[in-house]
């Protein structure tokens, strides 16, 4: 290190001297193509980069607002809320983590379920909130999902789930793993009732979520570039000690390997989901 420190410092950075002040949040930079974007344009474009089509992650409520008709929305299972059944503690207790996430994300847990309609096609839509503990699935996610499916059955509607999750929530131990079985079982009843289930995979859909209801759609849709898989890329790399192929576990890779039906750009999602559902349910074509 010695000689490096002795070099004359010709270029010095003067903190704050040359910076133009830009109002916070007016502009944002695309993390894929680096284009500087007007924040408003990005919002109007469903958080998809207008330059390169990169799909930024979006919150559950924003997603629901994009998809559902404004009228006639009813939330399902909002009263189902998390507890800390194992008194789990790592650097923080799970109870604290729940509280913090609830405060910062302004949701009670990682799945929001809404009954409503998409271009007048009635459906129950469950959406993951990735910001809430990485969209992890614990007891509340499983219960809300199951109640959503039941509501769809009771009202003879379609069910849609839009996943964005790192997998099962470790802090609830085996109770989380069992949510994989619970959600999958709920779907057997939907199927028996002859109602369609569309699974939409967004970035990222991994682990216990991917290995249960997310891969059980009558139709499985993914957003472009979404990371989808069972094991995380790092775990695989450490296990097989090989470099992963290009585009591994991305939506396009899954499409090529026959794991999903189609990739839909978020900006077309509402129209195409409505049309798919109307076709599956033999309803008149959507306008």
């Amino acid at each position, binding site marked *: 290190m010695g000689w490096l420190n002795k070099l004359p410092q010709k270029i010095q950075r003067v903190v704050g001297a040359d910076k133009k002040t830009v109002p916070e949040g007016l502009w944002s930079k695309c993390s894929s193509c680096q284009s500087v974007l007007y924040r408003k344009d990005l919002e109007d474009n469903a958080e998809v980069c207008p330059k390169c089509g990169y799909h930024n992650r979006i919150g559950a409520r924003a997603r629901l607002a994009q998809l559902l008709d404004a009228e006639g929305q009813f939330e399902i299972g*909002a*009263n*189902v*809320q*998390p*507890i800390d*059944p*194992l008194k*789990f*503690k*790592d*650097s923080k207790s799970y109870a604290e983590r729940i509280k913090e996430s609830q405060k910062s994300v302004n949701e009670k847990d990682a799945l929001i379920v809404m009954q409503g309609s998409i271009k007048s096609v009635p459906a129950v839509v469950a959406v993951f909130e990735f910001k809430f503990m990485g969209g992890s699935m*614990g*007891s*509340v996610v*499983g*219960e809300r999902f199951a109640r959503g499916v039941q509501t769809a059955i009771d009202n003879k509607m379609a069910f849609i789930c839009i996943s964005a999750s790192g997998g*099962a929530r*470790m*802090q*609830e*131990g*085996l*109770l*989380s*793993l*069992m*949510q*994989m*079985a*619970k959600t*999958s*079982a709920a*779907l*057997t*009843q939907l199927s028996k009732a002859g109602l369609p289930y569309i699974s939409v995979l967004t970035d990222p859909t991994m*682990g*216990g979520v*991917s*290995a*249960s*209801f*997310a*891969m*059980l759609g009558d139709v499985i849709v993914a957003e472009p570039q979404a990371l*989808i*898989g*069972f*094991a*995380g890329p790092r*775990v*695989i790399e450490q*296990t*097989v000690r*090989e470099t992963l*192929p290009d585009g*591994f576990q991305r939506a396009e890779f899954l499409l090529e*390997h*026959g*794991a999903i039906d189609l990739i839909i750009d978020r900006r077309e999602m509402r129209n195409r989901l409505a049309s798919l559902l109307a076709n599956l349910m033999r309803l008149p074509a959507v306008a």
Partner: protein
Amino acid sequence: MKITYLDFEQPIAQLEAKIESLRSSHDDHDNLDISKELTALEKKSKKLSEDIYGNLTAWQISQMARHPQRPYTLDYIQALFTDFEELHGDRAFSDDPAIVGGIARFEGQPVMVIGHQKGRDIKERQYRNFGMPRPEGYRKALRLFRLAEKFNIPIVTFIDTPGAYPGIGAEERGQSEAIARNLYVMAELKTPIIGVIIGEGGSGGALALGVVDQLLMLQYGTYSVISPEGCASILYKSADKASVAAEALAITADKLKTLGLIDKIVPEPMGGAHRAPEEMMASLKVALKEELTRFKSKSIKTLLVSRYERLMSYGKFKEVAEK
């Protein structure tokens, strides 16, 4: 077979070695009466074993669950069943040796047995992929589930895996879908399913054989959403904290029984199943017989209703009053 002792079993190992050497030296000078000393030492050994095995930590139990001499699925099949005919392959890609299955008889009754299979020596361990199935394994199991359903034959699954294999090919061939499909199909399969956790119940890879009507668990088995090491490296930022994570995750039979996630604990011989395999087999046989007999009298309709209710009951949460 020479017994492999785990770290925490070393005091027992030393004492047993002492007893052994005393016994063998006795053969050389049989005019010496050492029976008194032997009895005392054996008593001490028993007491030591009771102390150690009576107070195992969750981490020590995970070591027991992974003990290299523990009986594996094929050992149980050989001991508890007759006329076993192994059935191979997923009919689409290959045969995965990390899952074995086939038709057999249990006390005369036809049963479909399916389980994860680990290997005993280095070569077999590799062949069995350390009991980590690829999608083909789950799809073979699925095929056997359907076969059992078709002929109205009850299913017994043996669970013993570190988890589903995290590999490139496994992902390419749909590991997630393979597991998910099994969960779905097992939930509505029209035949009784009994599961036994004989060793490690590693996450989704275990659950894919674990959606059952009755779940038995051996005393020193574990069942977990993630391995203690995996949890430690993610949440505690250090794999050394595996013992802490093992405790926190509630992976042992008694904790899971309290949580209502397993139905019955099958006690193991002192020191674990591998110390007295015949004893283990005998007590599991009794437990399995009880379950299989119980399901004989149940109609498929009630079976499916109670299976669905059981699945829907999983989870702990609170319900607050609607605003």
